[in-house]
């Protein structure tokens, strides 16, 4: 498990039904690309977050397959549109098998 992994998510408190709104996510992670070499010339093994998904009340909003070309502290911004109040759940999957999650409630109206 990578150290100090902390997800941060920004979701509006409320939204109008059927209207698209923005969600911003950021997770602190070193995202070692596997392309770099250490001072002795040995390649540093890849250690990244390889998958992100956002769901709302069990329905998928977006899934992303991240590669080594994603920057340190991966930032993903996207839009969602909902019809009822509920909870967004965010999941990040690490190369080492760990999973980081966060959730946010939102009200419609």
């Amino acid at each position: 498990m990578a150290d100090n992994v902390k997800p941060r998510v920004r979701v509006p408190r409320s939204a109008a039904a059927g209207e698209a709104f923005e969600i911003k996510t950021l997770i602190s992670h070193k995202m070692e690309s596997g392309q770099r070499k250490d001072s002795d010339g040995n390649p540093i093994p890849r250690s990244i977050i390889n998958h992100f998904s956002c769901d709302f009340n069990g329905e998928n909003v977006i899934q992303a397959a991240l590669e080594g070309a994603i920057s340190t502290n991966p930032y993903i911004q996207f839009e969602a549109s909902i019809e009822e109040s509920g909870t967004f759940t965010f999941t990040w999957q690490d190369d080492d098998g760990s999973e980081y999650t966060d959730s946010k409630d939102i009200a419609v109206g």
Partner: protein
Amino acid sequence: MQFTRRDTLVMGAGAAVATFMPLQVFADATDDVSAEFAMGETITDGGVEITAPEIAENGNTVPISVNAPGAVAVLILATGNPSPKVIAFNFGPRAGASSASTRCRLAGTQDVVALAKMADGSVKRASATVKVTIGGCGG
């Protein structure tokens, strides 16, 4: 040692070949990945918007956003990176729009390509050139 005009030209040409050769290899990798994503469909230009800075001072964090109305999936490729794939988005039923943004690493000045798979299976393409002052691949 004195360089004649001819020597200089030959060296210049050699340097140019040396610079462009690796990029050519990466370009082939991009074609392979694009073909895999398209799954036999013809890739057409237009219908997708990719937003990237014209000049990125730091190749370690280059903001990229893509907007592909009607797309179910989007793949972003960096044609000049050692491994061209950057990120693949799949939009679910609750997505408000087929658009997303992220930040990526670019090894150097290159084209960034967005491929979008539409609901009917067709594949659209857009690209943007980003000039990178300091590359983002380390070493």
